[in-house]
């Protein structure tokens, strides 16, 4: 190819085109609003987090109330941190930095307002529905369908505002931070939409259109990439803006930023299946997940190194400037988490770590370290600027830095220890060849002291956060808020693309950038998901696996409502240690009627895949009423209200109809007869309990839940 002269340098361009200076104002109000929401919901999210942490040490903190039990408020904690704290944080960071790298006000003040208030309403609805047990059970996607639709709409509002701003920019080039923001918008949109496909039963209840293995695959394609595109790409984008600002020097390597941008978004999307190793997912999908997860370390570290090297030769600055200190720890935590991620996806390590607190430690290094600390750095840098003043107290910020850093260490170390220890205990055999810890509970009680230590770490972190709130409030108080920041920019009109490389044209066009990211992130998704969805033979059917009875279906929904899946898995991996403890390992054909899947991701309690028939009905009755009555020392919450609450069967038939339309073979006669069938089964269980001298009405919730638990994993035994 012949070379043409390139008119890329602005010096050259300046001579050819008209130059004008325009005056305008940056919108700081949206930034302040999102920032304020970040701080408020950070506090809420961390308080709930500390509560759930303490519940595992002191189960009385479940308060024997449905709304405050672990299974319901653990999702409240994760959603509050991810979508309310971090979500508002990235919006604040994006709204601030995007206007400045584009040298323009946000595209539309109205859209900014709708985005802000819409997002807060979504958070509010989550805060109400989750404690009420209104949940889809899919991790980080627990909100029910009307809220999902609202999220999609508000996300589009954000997207229009984002892309609109980039289109009307005064800066000819699109700075790399904005690339990351565009990829965030595009990918989260796809992830959210595809993972939320559900068939409504009623206003607040729906079933995932996917079942079993497919549902799991889609869910972790989503879950893993929510980490990538909600918790990572926006943060890298913010790093590329705020770090140069804080250090007052440009980023170390712009080329590296572009290289790691494209490789990161390309690779991430393939890695989801590493959440499902040794599960019933087809082997080839698992292998793809592992290979791409390992490769992912390169672009991740590319980002970290680019950030840290930006500070080369300026370490004296770091020791003085607390915002830079937060930044350095944040990037270090990012590097650690992204080193550990690939390790965890290696099958041999995963075999020990999966389902344990190791994973909990891993995510908290990311959340507390990478996300939290970067947001704190930005807050300390931003609030004085928004209020046109200096930070109230540098020493308090230092105190926060140390409390936070110690908090992360005191959190992570005990959790790594707990995870490692418990993972090994689950696998340990005596020389005689039997499990050393046949009683699961024993492996729990041994790690409870570490849970207590973790709560101390969390308390430190929270204390530091409170110090920051005070410091920032004082800062705001002494300054005055600059709602509209006057500025000006040079504008070049009539930019001619002729004679430029293809990449120049490409880079100047946000829409094109959006589409290319869309294509790049779609490749991995398509290669994995389409075959899994289309090819039936990926899931060998098992003749004896039958749909749930109406009563069991209702019981299953109670299991979802109470969030039992937050502590219990339903996935027995093909290890001797697991088959010995739980029974035959899980086959993909066993889950074909599971809309949604309930594999779980953390075993705070034992796996329940083969629970059916293990204990008599009476055992479950007493255990659910008061777990310690059957298992002294248990940390499982008590579910006494299940004995009192009448089972709501108003939707049973509607539920079966929805299931039928999703491919579950319920005949019309069976659906019509559902109430009788349900009553018969309930009466039988009640009679059985009565024989054990337990008086309970057949129309109580506990009967349905027992029916479901007794069904679990029994189908294959009939073969």
């Amino acid at each position, binding site marked *: 190819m012949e070379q043409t002269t390139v008119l890329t340098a602005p010096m050259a361009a300046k001579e050819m085109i008209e130059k004008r200076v325009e005056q305008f104002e940056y919108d700081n109000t949206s930034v302040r609003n999102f920032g304020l929401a970040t701080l408020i919901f950070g506090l809420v999210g961390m308080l709930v987090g500390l509560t759930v942490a303490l519940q595992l040490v002191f189960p009385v903190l479940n308060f024997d109330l449905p709304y405050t039990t672990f299974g319901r408020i653990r999702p409240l904690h994760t959603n509050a941190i991810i979508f309310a704290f971090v979500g508002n944080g990235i919006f604040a960071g994006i709204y601030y930095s995007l206007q400045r790298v584009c040298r323009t006000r946000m595209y539309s003040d109205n859209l900014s307002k709708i985005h802000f208030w819409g997002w807060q309403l979504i958070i509010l609805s989550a805060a109400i529905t989750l404690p009420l047990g209104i949940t889809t059970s899919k991790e980080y996607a627990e909100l029910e369908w009307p809220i999902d639709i609202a999220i999609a709409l508000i996300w589009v509002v954000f997207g229009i505002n984002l892309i609109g701003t980039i289109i009307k920019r005064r800066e000819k*080039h699109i700075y790399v931070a904005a690339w990351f923001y565009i990829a965030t918008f595009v990918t989260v949109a796809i992830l959210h939409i595809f993972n939320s496909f559900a068939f409504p039963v009623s206003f607040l209840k729906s079933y995932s259109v996917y079942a079993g293995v497919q549902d799991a695959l889609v869910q972790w394609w989503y879950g893993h990439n929510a980490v990538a595109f909600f918790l990572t790409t926006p943060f890298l984008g913010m790093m590329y803006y705020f770090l140069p600002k804080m250090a007052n020097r*440009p980023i170390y390597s712009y080329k590296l930023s572009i290289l790691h941008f494209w490789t990161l978004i390309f690779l991430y999307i393939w890695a989801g299946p590493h959440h499902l190793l040794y599960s019933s997912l087809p082997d080839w999908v698992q292998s*793809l997940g592992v290979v791409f997860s390992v490769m992912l370390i390169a672009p991740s570290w590319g980002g970290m190194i680019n950030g840290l090297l930006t500070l080369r030769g300026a370490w004296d600055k770091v020791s003085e400037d607390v915002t830079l200190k937060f930044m350095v720890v944040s990037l270090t935590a990012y590097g650690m988490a992204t080193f550990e991620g690939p390790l965890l996806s290696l099958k041999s390590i995963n075999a020990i770590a999966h389902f344990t607190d190791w994973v909990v430690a891993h995510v908290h290094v990311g959340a507390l370290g990478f996300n939290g600390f970067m947001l704190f750095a930005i807050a300390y840098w931003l609030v004085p600027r928004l209020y046109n003043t200096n930070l109230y107290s540098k020493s308090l910020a230092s105190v926060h830095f140390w409390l936070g850093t110690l908090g992360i260490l005191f959190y992570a170390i005990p959790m790594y220890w707990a995870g490692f220890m418990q993972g090994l205990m689950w696998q340990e055999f005596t020389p005689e060849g039997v499990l050393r810890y046949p009683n699961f509970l024993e492996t729990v009680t041994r790690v409870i002291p570490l849970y207590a230590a973790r709560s101390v770490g969390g308390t430190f972190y929270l204390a530091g956060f409170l110090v920051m709130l005070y410091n920032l409030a004082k800062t705001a108080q002494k300054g005055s808020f600059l709602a509209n920041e006057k500025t000006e920019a*040079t504008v070049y009109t009539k930019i001619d693309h002729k004679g430029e490389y293809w*990449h120049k044209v490409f880079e100047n066009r946000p829409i094109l950038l959006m589409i290319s990211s869309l294509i790049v992130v779609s490749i991995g998704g398509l290669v994995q998901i389409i075959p899994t969805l289309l090819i039936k*033979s990926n899931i060998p059917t098992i003749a004896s696996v039958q749909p749930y009875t109406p009563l069991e279906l209702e019981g299953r929904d109670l299991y979802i409502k109470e969030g039992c899946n937050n502590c219990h898995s339903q996935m027995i991996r093909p290890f001797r240690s697991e088959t010995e403890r739980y029974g035959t390992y899980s086959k993909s054909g066993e889950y074909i009627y599971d809309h949604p899947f309930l594999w779980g991701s953390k075993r705070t309690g034992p796996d329940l895949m083969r629970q059916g028939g293990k204990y008599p009905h009476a055992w479950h009755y007493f255990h659910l009423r008061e777990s310690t009555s059957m298992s002294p020392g248990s940390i499982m919450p008590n579910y006494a209200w299940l004995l009192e609450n009448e089972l709501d069967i108003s939707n049973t038939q509607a539920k079966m109809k929805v299931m039928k339309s999703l491919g579950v073979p319920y005949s019309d006669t069976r659906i019509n007869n559902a109430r009788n069938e349900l009553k018969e089964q309930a009466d039988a269980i009640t009679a059985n309990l009565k024989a054990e001298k337990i008086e309970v009405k057949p129309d109580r919730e506990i009967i349905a839940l027992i029916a479901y638990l007794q069904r679990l994993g029994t189908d294959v035994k009939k073969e």
Partner: protein
Amino acid sequence: MFKQHLAGVTGFDAYLILSLLIFLLFFIGIAVRLFFFDKKEIEYLKNIPLDKNFDN
């Protein structure tokens, strides 16, 4: 029909290799393109957050 299709590729080694190839090509494409990136332009881009590009 699908079944026969699948039988040939069980283990899906082909899939894995193909995926890695796609990535390799993609990576090389970007690397090559970055290699030819204009130096002055990079300097300009780098300085966007720092307002140094403007006289004002």
